[in-house]
């Protein structure tokens, strides 16, 4: 075969490394977890250490793309468990950088909703375990928007008084999804003509935007600078926590179901400890602590059942049922089509 890639190269390097170091003592029980900062309770790792005696270190990454780039370039050396969104977990698997999940080492998998074991990118949780899940929709100030928004159209061609007070996500998959969904297409659409059609719509929509914003949109809602934003549900909750007039809605055309997963790195030297970490996270009390701490839904039935009901009143999107979530389309890795998406997003963002 002519197809040698960087990863096989990296795999050879790590294989050589393993063979070169048989004399070194078996690695002490220590694992490295990479996650977004603040995406798990601060005391989670120290509690894990107390419960299991396994030392866990917290590394951080800013985006899926960055940790992916780092793992691809280095073969993932040094990392044991990565928190990434599902399309990235899928790509890690395709690049042979994800270790198989051994269910016998994670008894707490039974705490997950049945639906969480049937996700399209990884049915049966063979290489990834879901950590949090949710939807993308509209997060808005009910007191500043006349009539509740209910369609992607409301975002793409806002009513006159909302023009210049709307923000959209610019992360490629979610930006494209807003256009594709409003046209009734799949969020994983691969047809070039349809991608172009969605792109044209999004270029048109740019005229009415205040800005693209993936990081501070909830803050703009609180200050009143924006009235309607394209948002991830869990993130909308940070706005709701500051201002009760902020609400979240899923447009009637439907949306995507995003899943953030835990993946064990193929090169992990301590896979057993990595499995025990995942098992610990899936524990009912730990899961409930995670959900109430980060305000994102966890796909953990036992944990959601244990959650303080007051949270469901304050943050209604936390109460969304798995069956409703599963009705939304799941983001998949696009393979070759990714190039077309990236080019289209570049075109949209640079258009005048």
């Amino acid at each position: 075969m002519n197809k040698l890639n960087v990863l096989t190269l990296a795999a050879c390097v790590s294989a050589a490394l393993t063979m070169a170091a048989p004399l070194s003592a078996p690695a002490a029980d220590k694992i490295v977890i990479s996650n977004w900062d603040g995406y798990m309770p601060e005391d989670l790792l120290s509690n894990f250490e107390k419960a299991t005696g396994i030392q866990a270190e917290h590394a951080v990454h800013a985006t899926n793309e960055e940790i992916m780039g780092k793992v691809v370039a280095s073969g993932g050396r040094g990392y044991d468990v990565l928190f990434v969104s599902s399309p990235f977990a899928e790509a890690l698997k395709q690049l042979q950088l994800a270790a198989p999940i051994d269910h016998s080492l994670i008894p707490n998998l039974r705490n997950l909703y049945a639906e969480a074991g049937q996700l399209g990118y990884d049915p049966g949780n063979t290489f990834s375990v879901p950590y949090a899940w949710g939807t993308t929709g509209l997060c808005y100030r009910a007191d500043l928007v006349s009539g509740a928004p209910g369609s992607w159209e409301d975002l793409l061609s806002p009513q006159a008084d909302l023009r210049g007070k709307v923000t959209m996500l610019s992360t490629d998959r979610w930006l494209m999804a807003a256009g594709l969904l409003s046209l009734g297409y799949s969020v994983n659409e691969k047809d070039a003509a349809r991608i172009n059609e969605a792109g044209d719509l999004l270029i048109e929509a740019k005229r009415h935007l205040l800005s693209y914003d993936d990081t501070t949109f909830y803050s703009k809602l609180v200050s009143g600078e924006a009235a309607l934003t394209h948002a991830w549900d869990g993130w909308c909750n940070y706005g709701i926590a500051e201002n009760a007039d902020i609400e979240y809605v899923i447009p009637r055309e439907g949306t995507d179901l995003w899943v953030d997963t835990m993946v064990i790195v193929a090169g992990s030297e301590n896979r057993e400890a990595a499995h025990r970490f995942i098992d610990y996270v899936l524990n009912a009390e730990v899961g409930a602590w995670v959900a109430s701490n980060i305000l994102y839904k966890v796909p953990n039935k036992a944990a959601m059942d244990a959650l303080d009901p007051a949270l469901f009143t304050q943050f209604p999107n936390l109460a969304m049922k798995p069956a409703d979530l599963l009705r939304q389309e799941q983001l998949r890795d696009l393979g070759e089509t990714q190039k077309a998406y990236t080019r289209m997003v570049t075109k949209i963002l640079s258009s005048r």
Partner: protein
Amino acid sequence: MGGRLKNGLLLAPGLGWLGLFMVVPCAIVFFFSFFERGTYGGIEYHFTLENFRRTLDPLYLSILLDSGRIAALATLLALLIAYPAAYAISLAPRRRQSVYLFLAILPFWSNYLIRTYAWMVLLNREGIVNRALASLGVIDAPLPLLYNEFAVVTGLVYNYVPFVILAVYASVSRIDPALREASEDLGAGAARTFLRVILPLTVPGVVAGCVFVFVLSIGNFITPDLLGGGRFLMVGNLIYDQFLTARDWPFGAGLSMMLIGIMMALLFIQAVMVNRNAAVRE
């Protein structure tokens, strides 16, 4: 004579470092530009020139031109602000000069992201600047200060002004005060002294400062994203997206090579002009 050898010893550590930690690693990445992206990222070793053909896409060329224009504007403004400041510092008593330099750079030991957030607080529609102007009766309706080219340029100028101050200071402080006095004693006014004596001597600092602002601006991607509201793409965004979002290393490498080629050509032209200038003066 040992001149050549001594010169070699001065150059060796720097060239060795750059050779080992820049030339060799980057050669590997640039080598990728002759191959194809694998389906899920990674490289497939099929030789192709496709990546270079793609860099000629008018979409990417227009981004290059546009970000070149924004970077040039930021460079010009940064120079107009920084030059007189550096000159003023060089006029201060000698032992105060380094304190002034410290004070100019010290705000930049905070963090880029939160400094940028601070600008958002200042410039947004409900922001401090708009409120101040409104309460002074200068404006009736809020000015659109944020999420446009003005905000991007302001952010770039703000972050890179201190670098120009440092570069210009390094060359302006070299000027012997006696030179200025001599010029004035000969009857030249302050303005004339500046234009005919000071300015020509500080060209190297001006050029270095401008290069800093230009290259750092064109490669920036946080300022256009936050202060430009994501409406502008700099070349930095473009290349970053190819490597990380698209996981298309071969094309990212191709684009980078094009960028580096263009910048080298510009720098070469600039160097030729500076040298010709110097030759004329000497």
